[in-house]
C-alpha cells in the first residue's frame, strides 16, 4: 500500500478535481525527478540552491518538493531583460526557482 495520500473531492480545494480517481498513488510514489529543457536569453541558469525560499503552496507541491532531487534555478539580474523558454521534457516530480532581481 502506498504511503502517498492524494487530494480528493473531500478536501474543499480539490472538490472539483479528484486526483485520487485520476492517478494511482503508486504512480505518484514511484515517479522520477522531472527533466527540463531550458533555452535562456540573458538569464543565469544554475542548479537549485541548498536552501530554497518557500512560499505558499498546495498539497501536491509538498510531494513535489520532497520527491524532486534537482531542478533549474533561473536568475535575471538587475536591469536585464531576458526571454526564457522552460519546457518539461520528461514527467515526474519537479521543482524550479525563478528569481527576477530588482528592476529587471
Amino acid at each position: 500500500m502506498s504511503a502517498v495520500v492524494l487530494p480528493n473531492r473531500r478536501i474543499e480545494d480539490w472538490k472539483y478535481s479528484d486526483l485520487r480517481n485520476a492517478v494511482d498513488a503508486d504512480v505518484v510514489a514511484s515517479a522520477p525527478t522531472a527533466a527540463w529543457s531550458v533555452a535562456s536569453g540573458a538569464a543565469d541558469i544554475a542548479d537549485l540552491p541548498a536552501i530554497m525560499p518557500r512560499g505558499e503552496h498546495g498539497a501536491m507541491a509538498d510531494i513535489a518538493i520532497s520527491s524532486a532531487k534537482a531542478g533549474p534555478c533561473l536568475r535575471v539580474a538587475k536591469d536585464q531583460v531576458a526571454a526564457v523558454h522552460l519546457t518539461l521534457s520528461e514527467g515526474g516530480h519537479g521543482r524550479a526557482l525563478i528569481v527576477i532581481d530588482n528592476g529587471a
Partner: protein
Amino acid sequence: MQTEDFANIAVEIIVGENAKFTHVRHAPRNDAVQVVDYSVRVAAGGTYRAHFANFGGKLSRTELHIALEGKGAEAHLSGVSVLNDGHADVTTHVTHACGKTQSRQVFKHVAGGHARGVYQGKVSVAVGANDSDSNQSAKGLLLGNRAEIDLKPELEILADDVKCAHGAAVGDLDAESLFYLRSRGIPEAEARALLMRAFIGDAVEQIEDESIRASIWQAVDAALEGLS
C-alpha cells in the same frame, strides 16, 4: 497509467522591487495528469503577469499562490481553456499582504463533449492592507449537455478601505447573436466560431507580446475547430 504520463511540479517565483515578469504557459492537449503549482512573491513596485492556455488533459491543474508583499505590487492573471474532453482546473490564491496593491484576473472556459473546466479564485486582503484593488472575472461557455464548468470566486477581506470585485457566469452561446450572424449569411459553424472567439478574446488579448499572442490564438482556433 505510466509514470511518464504524470507530472507534479512546484515552482517558486520571486519578483524583486520594480521588476516585471511576464509568464506564459501553454499546455497542449494530452492524456496526462499534470499538477503545476506556482508560488509567486512580488515586492514593492513589482509586476507579475501570467497567461495560461489550456487545451485539456486527463486532469490538468494549475495552482497559483501569489503574495503581493510591497506597496505598488501588481498581479495580472488571465487564462483560457478550450476543452473538447478532459479536465482543466485553474486555482488561484492572491494575497494582498500590503496596501496599495492591485490584482486583476480574467479567466474563460469553453467546454464541449464530456469536458470539465474549473476555476477557483480566492483573494485575501490582510489586516491593514488598505487601498488594495482587486478584480476577478470568470466566465464559462457550455457547449453540450455533458460538459461541466465550475466557477468559484472568493473574497476574504480583513481591511476597511479596499476595492474588490468579483463575478462569475456560465451559459450557452447567445441564440439571438447566432441568429443575427446567420441572418447575415454566415454559416452556422462559422458563426459559432466567431462568437466563441469573441468570448475568449479579452483573456487572450491580455498577452502583451504580439508573437506569443498570435501563437496562442492559433492554438485556440485549432481547438475551437475540434469542438463538438
